[in-house]
């Protein structure tokens, strides 16, 4: 195999892993709600959504490992990397804070991922990715509906729920720009027709958010400079704490398997 082919493979792996990282890290954040959700029904909902995301991450890591061909398993990707090697966007690693923050984060993410997976399922040159995407799209549609309904209920709810939701918008909106930015690996994957250009999801995302915000009586702030860095492995302080928990078993008992 020539150097060019090897490097193309490495780029493909990197492009898939950054999406898997988004799913893993957000799935982990949702799992942190276990035992803390405001009501039993949301306890189930948060765990179920987290489970969907973990399932998507597993399929993507396994596929990346196969393309790479070096014997890395889904667990190796999930547990045996250092912070700088995780390429998730900053939005998904943000702390849960309160239920308003968590649901708004979920809305922002699902409103992007649902059209994203739908486009992957229809256009990707990679058959396995199309399969993963077709399944994931249905799951994201469900998450989008659930999160959107909560944002509307809370934004147009009591004085306290509206205040919390408005706080969450101010805190999180500046992390949404990164969803649409293509890392060098992503740009190569777009050129190779493996993945769609994230920027092409913007119209639908804007439309979804505008619909929800209108019903929720929320206003999107004008953000001049969007936060970024996750796709380069530059994370916020939250990420270190998250990984300490996520990787605890492998650090305490290196090499443990189920």
């Amino acid at each position, binding site marked *: 195999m020539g150097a060019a082919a090897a490097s193309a493979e490495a780029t493909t792996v990197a492009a898939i892993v950054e999406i898997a990282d988004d799913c893993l890290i957000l799935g982990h954040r949702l799992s942190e709600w276990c035992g803390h959700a405001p009501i039993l*029904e949301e306890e*189930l*909902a948060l*765990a179920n959504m987290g489970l969907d*995301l973990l399932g998507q991450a597993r399929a993507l890591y396994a596929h990346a490992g196969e393309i790479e061909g070096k014997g890395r398993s889904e667990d190796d990707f999930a547990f045996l990397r250092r912070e700088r090697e995780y390429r998730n966007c900053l939005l998904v690693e943000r702390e849960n804070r309160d239920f308003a923050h968590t649901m708004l984060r979920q809305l922002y993410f699902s409103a992007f991922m649902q059209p994203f997976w739908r486009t992957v399922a229809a256009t990707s040159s990679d058959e*396995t990715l199309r399969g993963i995407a077709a*399944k994931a799209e249905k799951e994201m549609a*469900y998450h989008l509906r659930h999160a959107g309904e909560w944002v509307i209920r809370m934004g147009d709810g009591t004085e306290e729920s509206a205040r919390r939701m408005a706080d969450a918008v101010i805190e999180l909106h500046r992390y949404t720009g990164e969803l649409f930015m293509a890392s060098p690996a992503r740009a190569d994957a777009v050129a190779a027709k493996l993945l769609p250009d994230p920027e092409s999801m913007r119209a639908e995302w804007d439309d979804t958010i505008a619909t*929800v915000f209108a019903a929720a009586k929320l206003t999107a702030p004008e953000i001049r400079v969007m936060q970024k860095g996750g796709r380069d492995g530059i994370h916020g302080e939250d990420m270190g704490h998250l990984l300490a928990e996520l990787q605890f078993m492998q650090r305490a008992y290196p090499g443990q398997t189920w």
Partner: protein
Amino acid sequence: MSAPAPTSGKPSGSVADFELARALEVASTVPDPEVPCVTVADLGILRSVSRDETGRIVVRLTPTYSGCPAVIAIEMAVETALLSAGIDSTIERVISPPWTTDWITDEGREKLRTYGIAPPVGSSGGRRAFFAEDTVACPRCGSTDTAKVSEFGSTACKAHYRCNACAEPFDYFKCI
């Protein structure tokens, strides 16, 4: 879309064909671990039973949800059932095309209802609007005066409902 039935080769009377037909029969009867009133064939997650080029029996199964924790349990249950019938097999997980509730057979839907779980309403791929509700009939009294309690229920594949007519809570098999 109607459920593509799990397939096996057409039996022509040889011992090998008999084994394949038997494998399909055994695999089809394995119950779902979380919804034991229906089999993997009823749910449409048993995709095929065939032989690979070496003659080994290959069973293809598809997960309902990406993160469904029952996937491994189902695969082990099918493999074990075949072993008990004296058949060695390889279990393959296929994700494409993705499973949809449209593949649940009519018999499977009736079994779900009898068991107390409302089967999915309509066909997949519809509902996107916020706060739109499906009309779900109570599996016990048949009333459509029901209310969604929780979008997510006891397993990844179910939502939680309550019947306003007979006051019974029930599970609804989500439509995806």
